[in-house]
């Protein structure tokens, strides 16, 4: 058993930086790869080696298996960490790594395949006695079959693409009159999105909670569960805020969910880190939804409440080490909440907002962890996911975690692009949220409500400040005289302000 000397990270952004940190902490060299628009990205700056792998479109760079493996070979990397997204759940890639003699840090290709199709996963789980939402465990053959199944389990029902993800190919059906057109729509969307028309039925749980369980399995047959994460806060089927533990899970429920998750992992012959997702109904019944065969975006909340480092453990497991603890050694302490900081415009329906970051003030201090892929002066490219950073708050209890996060969000400032920072201030102050009353419909309901406006006295302050900025030469008295391009203008302001600042410091 020998630790890797060099690991290639087949990813970008905050997760590449997070894995780089883990490698450096373990004394392992890091090979980064980057597309043309990512040359100035933080993960390239922080790596020990960095190789260009092609143009901006992911299909020609981060998703290109031969290019990634070629860099692994040239650099002498012994293992590849895929992060999340991109190639992380691609069984062919895991397979190709094995054939190229490079260790894939994640589960085996066959475990991934077992979990890759939702219908096949359901079949396997049925055998293992895992509870899941009533419905079909295989694709619907015909409209008649759909009609019969729906009648048996009762409306509302959910149509889902077998190859699905991200809400694509999903349709909620309230009554049988809607079934036919919904089935056709789901199928054609599934075809378009995944190249696979297969669609199945589940009983729809209205406004369920989405709770998931983190597991770790070594290559010697040991599997443990760590903690659950409450991930009910979603927009467009994308998670926005996650926390651990869940406000509704007690020690007994945690043990039961954890044991089911371990059973799921065993049934799939699963190794490394993975997550079993459950739907939870208002009576706290939980149903197997799917297994994510990779590190999750939201893994930090589990790290904070268990005191473990999941990426360190992923690497140790991939290097053949046994888990350094057993189930009874794992305990949960305190509460952690993660905010996903996206480049999104809250005033424009959270549409992505890439661009140049002109000013960055980052929070720190007690109970605050920041995993970030951005820096001041960096231009967020238009080509990838808008996730910029994750701000994670820890506290003795949920209330303290919330209050520390609000404090840190108030310190956080990302200038030049729009971000969803203000959204989190709103969520964290919401009375229902603070009471722990969450479900997957929460966020849409909250956003449909009215936002409180800033006080008039703050506008007075803004007016005074704007005048002072102008007087110090930071803003030309007449905006029409400013340089046409935002960039040029900002740069010239900067230098004027610098002299102003120096003048101030000297008097």
């Amino acid at each position, binding site marked *: 058993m020998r630790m890797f000397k060099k690991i290639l990270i087949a990813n970008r952004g905050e997760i590449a930086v997070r894995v780089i940190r883990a490698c450096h902490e373990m004394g392992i060299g890091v090979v980064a790869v980057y597309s043309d628009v990512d040359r100035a990205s933080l993960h390239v700056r922080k790596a020990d080696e960095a190789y260009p792998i092609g143009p901006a479109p992911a299909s020609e760079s981060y998703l290109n298996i031969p290019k990634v493996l070629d860099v692994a070979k040239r650099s002498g990397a012994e293992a590849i960490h895929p992060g999340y997204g991109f190639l992380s759940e691609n069984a062919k890639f895991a397979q190709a790594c094995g054939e190229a003699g490079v260790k894939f840090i994640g589960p085996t290709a066959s475990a991934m395949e077992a979990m890759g199709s939702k219908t096949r996963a359901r079949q396997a789980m049925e055998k293992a006695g895992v509870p899941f939402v009533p419905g079909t465990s295989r694709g619907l053959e015909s409209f008649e079959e759909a009609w019969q199944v729906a009648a048996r389990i009762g409306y509302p029902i959910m149509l889902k693409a077998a190859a699905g993800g991200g809400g694509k190919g999903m349709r909620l059906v309230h009554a049988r009159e809607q079934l036919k057109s919904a089935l056709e729509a789901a199928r054609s969307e599934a075809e378009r999105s995944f190249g696979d028309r297969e669609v199945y039925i589940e009983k729809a749980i209205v406004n369920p909670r989405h709770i998931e369980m983190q597991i770790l399995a070594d290559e010697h047959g040991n599997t443990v569960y760590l903690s659950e994460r409450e991930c009910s806060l979603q927009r467009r089927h994308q998670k926005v805020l996650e926390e651990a533990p869940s406000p509704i899970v007690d020690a007994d429920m945690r043990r039961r969910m954890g044991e089911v998750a371990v059973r799921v992992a065993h049934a799939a012959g699963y190794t490394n880190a993975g997550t079993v997702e459950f739907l939870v109904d208002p009576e706290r019944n939980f149903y197997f939804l799917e297994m994510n065969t990779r590190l999750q975006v939201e893994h930090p909340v589990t790290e904070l409440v268990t005191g473990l480092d999941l990426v360190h453990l992923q690497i140790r497991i991939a290097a053949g080490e046994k888990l350094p603890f057993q189930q009874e050694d794992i305990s949960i302490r305190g509460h952690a909440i993660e905010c996903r900081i996206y480049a999104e415009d809250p005033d424009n329906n959270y549409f992505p907002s890439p661009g140049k970051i002109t000013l960055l003030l980052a929070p720190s201090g007690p109970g605050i962890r920041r995993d970030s892929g951005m820096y001041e002066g960096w231009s967020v490219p*238009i080509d990838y996911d808008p996730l910029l950073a994750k701000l994670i708050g820890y506290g003795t209890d949920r209330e303290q975690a919330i209050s520390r996060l609000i404090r840190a969000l*108030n310190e956080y400032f990302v200038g030049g692009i729009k971000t969803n920072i203000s959204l989190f201030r709103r969520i964290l102050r919401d009375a229902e949220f603070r009471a722990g009353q969450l479900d997957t419909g929460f966020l849409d309901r909250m956003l449909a409500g009215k936002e409180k406006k800033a006080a008039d006295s703050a506008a007075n302050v803004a007016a*005074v400040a704007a*005048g*002072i900025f102008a007087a110090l030469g930071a803003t030309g008295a007449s905006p029409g005289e400013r340089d046409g391009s935002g960039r040029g203008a900002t740069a010239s302001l900067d230098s004027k302000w610098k002299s102003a600042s120096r003048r101030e410091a000297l008097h």
Partner: protein
Amino acid sequence: MIYDVIIDGKNYRLDLDHADGRWSCRLNGQALDVDAVIARPDVLSLRIANKAYEVKAEHVAQELHVWVGSARFAVEVRDPRSLRSRARAADDHGPRRITAAMPGKVVRVLAKEGDEVAPGAGIAVVEAMKMQNEIKSPKKGIVQKILIHEGGAVNAGDVLAIVE
């Protein structure tokens, strides 16, 4: 120095003087005890009568935003003595330039020069980070100019079209 600061359509008349590191300030005629230091570019540590504020200035495209703590204000600063700024203010009633709020790629152009458009009519579709955004006409009028083409890239603040 006298400035007219416009926030949310409301005008704030500001009379500012700065000498020997001290400020004198009147806001709409009322004297305020103001003390200000630029901590770093775009960051102002402001005290008004012993209340303390961290104020950030943000320049996105042509717009100036001023953040007081975590509250954002879209701000326009005019020098009332300047003809130019008055002229520009009048501009708002003439042709309207439609600008990109963020960088992206032009996926489709929906209108052509000479088209008559209603308020909210689509002008173009811009894609960024795998999402598509329809850019709409802010007013009824005639499309005077289209300054983009399908497949082209745009930056924040770029003028996409002009509606007369």
